[in-house]
């Protein structure tokens, strides 16, 4: 293609499109005025209001708990799925497992949420468990849709690693369990971290599925934000958004810096 102005121009406009709303969110979180879009002077009053709002603090705490627990279990189950699909060759339920592990990636959230809620209601009628709905049912739902994402990340790492190391260990008489924990696991560890972070983010971000499967008293952060936003303008949501964006930018910055250092070390 010609070294024209077209490509850089579209790219710049594309990034403006991606970032302008986020920047305006940050700018107006420091706005004195209650109107989110009219500048009324610099102030941090919405941050103060945010930290005095028990509803938001409580929801944030619930969301964090749910995200940590479901990401951790999803990493274990997702890794099992990836390992089984990449290393076990042919087995009877292979097609079924492949289908069930990839379908959640394209399943609309409303369907996942509704189907899990109906399952929980039916299970409660038949088995008496889970008694009512709340954090536990949200965690189960989040594990189920996050493990598919973890499986994708770990599978690509397993496909990229050198399998001869595992074979060498096997030839030297190590049992499969030992090979997995001593050889495979350390090699795919970065993928597990990436998968955990992905699952954690997805869980923290989910509104639709959690709304279906939650019960009284267990409102996650997205649910509280959604009800606030639906009622109209709320500048404290801007403040919350700025905090979240700050944490994410910091995390990504550290990750990039670490990666650069690792690459430089490799070169030397």
């Amino acid at each position, binding site marked *: 293609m010609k070294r024209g102005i077209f*490509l850089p121009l579209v790219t710049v406009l594309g*990034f403006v499109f991606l970032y302008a709303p*986020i920047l305006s969110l940050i700018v107006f979180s420091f706005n004195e005025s209650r109107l989110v879009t*009219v500048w009324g002077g610099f102030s941090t009053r919405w941050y103060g209001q945010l930290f005095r709002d028990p509803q938001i603090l409580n929801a944030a705490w619930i969301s964090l708990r749910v995200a940590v627990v479901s990401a951790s279990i999803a990493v274990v189950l997702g890794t099992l*799925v990836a390992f089984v699909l990449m290393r076990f060759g042919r087995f009877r339920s292979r097609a079924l497992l492949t289908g069930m592990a990839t379908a959640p990636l394209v399943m*609309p959230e409303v369907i996942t949420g509704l*189907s899990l809620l109906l399952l929980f*209601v039916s299970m409660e009628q038949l088995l008496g468990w889970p008694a009512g709905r709340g954090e536990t049912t949200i965690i189960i739902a989040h594990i189920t849709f996050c493990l598919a994402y973890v499986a994708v990340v770990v599978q690509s790492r397993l496909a990229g690693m050198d399998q001869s190391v595992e074979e060498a260990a096997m030839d030297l008489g190590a049992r499969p369990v030992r090979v997995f924990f001593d050889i495979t696991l350390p090699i795919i560890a970065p993928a597990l971290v990436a998968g955990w972070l992905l699952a954690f983010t997805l869980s923290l971000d989910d509104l639709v599925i959690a709304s279906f499967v939650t019960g009284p008293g267990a409102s996650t952060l997205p649910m509280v934000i959604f009800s606030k936003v639906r009622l109209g303008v709320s500048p404290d949501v801007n403040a919350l958004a700025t905090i979240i964006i700050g944490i994410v*930018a910091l995390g990504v910055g550290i990750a990039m810096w670490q990666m650069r250092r690792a690459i430089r070390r490799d070169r030397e």
Partner: protein
Amino acid sequence: MTGARRVTESALGRLGLSGRALVVAVPLVWLLVFFLIPFLVVAKISLSEVTIARPPYLPLLEWDGLRATLNLNFENYAYLWNDPLYGNAYLFSVRVAFVSATLALLIGFPMAYYIARSPEPRRTLLLTAVILPFWTSFLLRVYAWQGFLRSNGVINNTLISLGIIDTPIVMLQTDFAVYIGIVYTYLPFMILPLYANLVKLDDSLLEASADLGGRPVATFFYVTLPLSMPGIIAGFMLVFVPAIGEFVIPELLGGPNTLMIGRVLWNEFFANRDWPVASAVAIAMLVVLVVPIMALRSAQARAEEKR
């Protein structure tokens, strides 16, 4: 091997369970119980009758002590079929998803191409910038667009202060806002597979085409585009499929008449408390989704073969 371990292993072996089978069984059982069976429950409830009770539907199978009666009720599907609201919502969702995916492709392709052709430090930086918004809350990013599009929002205020318009343009609560929201949210999902594909594009092929007298436009249509087809299809699917069932974007950016199917299902469930109809909507939605997924899958398989 220790004695105890041998004993447990032979006991498990007698049950037909090896360690290997156990490793398969754990995720398999989890997914069966929490992913596959729920769909059977949805299918079951879509065939039952709504009632005012907890839970708000009648059982399919009734047992009066002597015999069981099976009450299959296809009313819910007949209702979906006869009320134009549902058919229109399906068609509208597919249209919105298709147009948004096309727009995302038109914006995403040049961006992915530019990033893939950039020299190294810049390439990683740009790619990270594409992924970064994905890690921040999706809900908050859609909320940000509300502030941009409303009548006293950033866009209208800017245009008015520049003297380009004197009355604000109504943008929030329109279909236009929904398109913007979907393209904005899913653009990274378009760019990433395109980038992964274009970065592997062999420069020598482009040079060969140019040496043989192919003008840039011809090179693009005869070399670049066919070679990047798998990436285009993957990106299109990643935008199109989730956009059909989208709930948050039409709810926050669309008007009351922007009835996409995900929103219809949500309202049936939460506002009308009609679980059987909501289930029937879900089943119909799955059927509608299977067709484009299958079509795109086979198109991708064909494109991969051609390479």
